[in-house]
């Protein structure tokens, strides 16, 4: 803890530099967000067609589905983890040797990179949010409490997403080709987080699988809280599940990192 306090200025500086890098590429960011708005619009069109005039399917209202998918997309940009590509390039280019010769722990540097990217991306997402609301036509949170708890849940979702991103990136210590695995993980996580199709519509077996995977913590749980689909104890339970995944994945990151370090110091990478 004392070390964290001492290294704080360094982490803040990394956050700020990352924000500057994202700003340097602001045109690219603007294009990406435009694509996101288009995606939100298309999802609305498709879901409206699926519902074909019926207001409620499987006990889920059209407006809820649209709110869900719109927010899931907005969230995706906010939660996006650059840790994978950062780790990959540092390891591949051998720059990790420089990172390790720093007085500040590397996992801390990595987290600062991640937070910096998010901090720079955040304002753009907030800027795009009103348009997304207009394009998608979404409903407000079920209640003020639901809105607040959603933000807490979103933070946990952020941590889960970051941990998964770091784990995939750490694979680069063992294999130089991580993009195959990366895209598989991306797809599986998008699918089982419910970001493509909300988990309500999953057949029971797949729903069970989703319940045992960490990915529902990335989108489905926070959005269920937002929509008021779960209330009271169920919310506490959802947050506990998320927290559990943060702890499990966090421990896993530390474990894999130690193994990677042992490999580096013993094998020379």
């Amino acid at each position: 803890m004392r070390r964290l306090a001492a290294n704080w200025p360094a982490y803040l500086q990394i956050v700020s530099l990352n924000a500057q890098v994202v700003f340097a590429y602001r045109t690219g960011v603007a294009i990406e967000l435009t694509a996101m708005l288009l995606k939100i619009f298309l999802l609305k069109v498709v879901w409206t067609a699926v519902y074909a005039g019926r207001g409620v399917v499987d006990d889920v209202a059209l407006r809820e589905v649209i709110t869900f998918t719109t927010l899931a997309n907005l969230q995706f940009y906010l939660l996006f983890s650059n840790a994978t590509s950062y780790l990959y390039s540092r390891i591949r280019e051998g720059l990790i040797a420089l990172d390790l010769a720093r007085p500040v722990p590397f996992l801390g540097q990595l987290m600062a990179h991640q937070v910096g990217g998010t901090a720079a991306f955040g304002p753009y997402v907030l800027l795009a949010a009103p348009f997304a609301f207009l394009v998608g036509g979404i409903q407000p949170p079920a209640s003020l409490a639901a809105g607040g708890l959603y933000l807490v849940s979103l933070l946990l979702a952020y941590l889960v997403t970051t941990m998964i991103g770091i784990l995939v990136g750490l694979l680069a210590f063992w294999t130089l080709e991580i993009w195959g695995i990366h895209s598989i993980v991306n797809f599986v996580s998008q699918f089982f987080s419910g970001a493509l199709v909300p988990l309500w519509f999953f057949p029971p077996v797949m729903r069970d699988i989703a319940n045992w995977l960490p990915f529902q913590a990335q989108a489905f749980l926070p959005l269920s809280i937002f929509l008021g689909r779960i209330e009271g104890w169920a919310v506490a339970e959802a947050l506990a599940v998320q927290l559990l995944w943060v702890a499990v994945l966090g421990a896993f990151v530390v474990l894999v990192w130690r193994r990677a370090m042992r490999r580096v110091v013993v094998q020379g990478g």
Partner: protein
Amino acid sequence: MPIIRVERVVKEFRAPKRQPGLLGSLRTLFTREEIVTRAVDDVSFALEEGELLGYIGPNGAGKSTTIKLLTGILVPSAGRVEVAGIVPWEDRAHNARNIGVVFGQRSQLWWDLPLVESFKLVAKLYRVEPQQYERNLGFFRELLGLDDFLTTPVRALSLGQRMRGDLAAAMLYEPRILYLDEPTIGLDVLAKERIRSFIEQINRERKTTVILTTHDLGDVERLCRRILLIDHGKILFDGTVTQLKAAYAPHRTLVAQVAPDGTGLPAMEQPVEIPNAEFVRWDEGKLWLRFDPAHVGAPALISELMARFPISDLQLVEPELELIIRQIYVERTVKA
């Protein structure tokens, strides 16, 4: 007390033995046969504070492995390493404050941002006080001429400018030791000289201990008093450049321009016998002799020559370091 102490260090790498071909690569998956390579093999040396060591050897000789052992990125298989009283891999964070590292082929600078932003980060990473930061930055701005490109994004810098930036970044927190891995690689003559004089100056004025890994023997001749020659993980030579020359290439060459006399040159171009000197050749009126300074002094040889020939010009040729090193590499390779 030495600031760097390396004692009988061995570093072995293990890799699964690979069989050739497709079937072979399948077999590789299932056998536990391993190939052990000794990158560093029983290496010992010590460095006093303020020394400037040239660490040379062919590709794959074990130079980078040694540097990684010193920075604490690698743990030795046997032996002991101490840098400024710290065992590097046991306390990497602490060791990091004492050392600066510059790789000619890799940069610690932030590609997309103005150079000065990377400096600010280094200041925070190493907790450099604002005053110290300003003072050092001012010093390096002048010494390395950084002013022209301090606010230029690193991706737009020339290789020479980038190297100057990397050197400043590594020295901002005033480390006691600087590891330089091929800092002049790919640079033009002027840029090289700029880097060299910077290294010379910080070594002289700040008493920074420098280990310089390079393939450019110009760097070594210009900067290093002491050199360490390594090949196949073993130290071949540890001493001064003069000692190396004396040990591996004791001969000097004397080239004498013989003034043309009335009789014409060709008749004169006969092999010459002079005690303690070896006749090499005649070449357009120049007489080439090789001699060992341990057996005969140059003045004695010259007066002997002057007694026999009308000499109009004289040249004493030192053996080139590059030739010596090349010769050592070749001999080692043949022996191995």
